[in-house]
């Protein structure tokens, strides 16, 4: 394993400490609960928005805390839902009179931790609602499974409800908006290489030099199928088709297109992927109104990318265009 890491058990806390040190004016860090929160939260006139999940997906979600997006993030260890207690303590600290909205990617561990924390918080009089995000089309929904997974599309839910919350929308309105965005958001990703969790110290799965994992999960879960490495156009084509067919997106739709890097793929390649995806979509009559290229939801050091489409209406377009001030900045 070649990583910047000391004791792997300290990986998450040392990362969070760095994040707090880099943003002393805007962020507060509570080490006992892996909690990163806006220094000015909670605010009486604004619903507080919280996202939690395993770590290893940075910048999601700890680096998305700030005006216009999250009020707090409470990550667990790498790829592990946070303990219930972390969520509960987080909700307590950002509880606003207008309520708290919890954004949770649809995984068993996260669901259970947040549901337990929601119950505990409600018992203490905090108004809480929990919204589950499940944009990953790699997993077909069925009664035998726990449904689709939440992946990079969560960014759009965060952004939209974050913007609406700044405008003063109430909790039910935010829930409606979040559900609405989730309903029109679809993602699929693929891995070129496996990722290496610091505590494991070796790759999470074996991926031969000539193979890719199509539909991989952001925790390295196997995807739809393993296939041969192909030129970019062919692989991007598969991703885009899978996403388009799922909703489905059709000619005449206006969309936001996100090409998200999974951690080990440089941004130059992501722009190449973006260009191919863009052309494929415009060729079938889909209009791209907003574009996003970079890392939004990663899987540690995995090389690979995901493609997300959001079908835009006026409300979503407007909310996505609002400003936000978060830790990730380039100037």
């Amino acid at each position, binding site marked *: 394993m070649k990583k910047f890491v000391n004791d792997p058990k300290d990986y998450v806390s040392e990362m969070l400490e760095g994040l707090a040190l880099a943003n002393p004016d805007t962020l507060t860090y509570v080490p006992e609960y892996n909690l990163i929160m806006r220094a000015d939260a909670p605010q009486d006139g604004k619903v507080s928005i919280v996202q939690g999940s*395993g770590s290893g997906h940075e910048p999601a979600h700890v680096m998305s805390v700030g005006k216009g997006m999250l009020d707090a993030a409470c990550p667990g260890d790498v790829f*592990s839902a946070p*303990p219930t207690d972390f969520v509960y303590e987080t909700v307590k600290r950002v509880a606003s009179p207008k309520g708290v909205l919890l954004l949770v990617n649809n*995984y068993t561990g996260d669901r259970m931790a947040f549901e337990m924390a929601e119950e505990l918080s409600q018992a203490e009089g905090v108004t809480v609602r929990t919204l589950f995000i499940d944009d990953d089309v790699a997993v077909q929904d069925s009664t035998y499974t726990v449904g689709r997974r939440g992946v990079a599309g969560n960014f759009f839910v965060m952004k939209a409800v974050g913007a609406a919350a700044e405008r003063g929308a109430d909790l039910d309105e935010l829930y409606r908006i979040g559900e609405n965005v989730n309903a029109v958001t679809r993602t699929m990703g693929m891995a070129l290489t496996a990722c290496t969790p610091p505590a494991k110290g070796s790759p999470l799965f074996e991926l031969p030099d000539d193979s890719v994992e199509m539909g991989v999960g952001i925790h390295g879960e196997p995807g739809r199928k393993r296939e041969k490495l192909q030129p970019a156009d062919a692989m991007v084509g598969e991703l885009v088709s899978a996403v388009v067919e799922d909703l489905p997106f059709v000619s005449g739709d206006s969309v936001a297109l996100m090409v998200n890097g999974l951690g080990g793929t440089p941004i130059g390649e992501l722009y190449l992927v973006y260009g191919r995806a863009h052309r494929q979509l415009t060729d079938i009559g889909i209009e791209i109104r907003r574009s996003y290229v970079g890392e939004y939801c990663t899987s540690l050091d995995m090389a690979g990318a995901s493609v997300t489409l959001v079908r835009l209406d006026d409300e979503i377009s407007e909310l996505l265009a609002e400003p936000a001030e978060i830790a990730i900045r380039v100037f």
Partner: protein
Amino acid sequence: MPTTSASAADLAFVVRTIAQTAVDNEAAFGDLDAVAGDGDFGYSLARGFEIVLADWDGFDQSVPSDFLRQVALVISKRVGGTSGPLWGTAFLRASGAVRDRQEVGAADAVAMLRAAAEGIKARGKSDLGDKTLLDALIPMTDALEACVSAGDGPAAGGSELAALAAATARKAADGTTPMQARRGRQSYTGERSIGSPDPGAVAVAVMAERVAAEWDPRG
């Protein structure tokens, strides 16, 4: 000569052995989870149970139910992933099953295990056959119950019961290999979860085996 009445010391021994097994098998359990899951199962369990071991002397062990609740709390507070809520719930329900008891016996052991299994079912919306730790825990509990209620004399001692639990859990855990996961992260892989045993079920078996192996040598 063994007795069917398990004392508070037996309970402490079992819990401590479970904790020690989780800590000692961090890497092995993690590797099992990496096959069709995300590899963190060993890490999650170890982080919680190492605190159980560290806090050991601080636990008030005089009342079985209180003792188990304290363990449950540590797990809920410190274990993330799916395992935190599931194992926390299991210990909490076990605590509830012996609420008014000062001493716990073989029948209480069965009651605690049954309560734990029911708690996991409820919390995880899961059941036998979903390829989870329930597929080791429930058969093990069934076997113990059958033995305890049949031979309601001193026929089976703690040591024999432990051995029975271990053998049943191991067989059941091995039996998860051909199953297709329907709950937990593994279920996302569909048919590709077939062919490897469920990490949670294996963990139950390994813990039971260690309890059996160390039951007598305790002296």
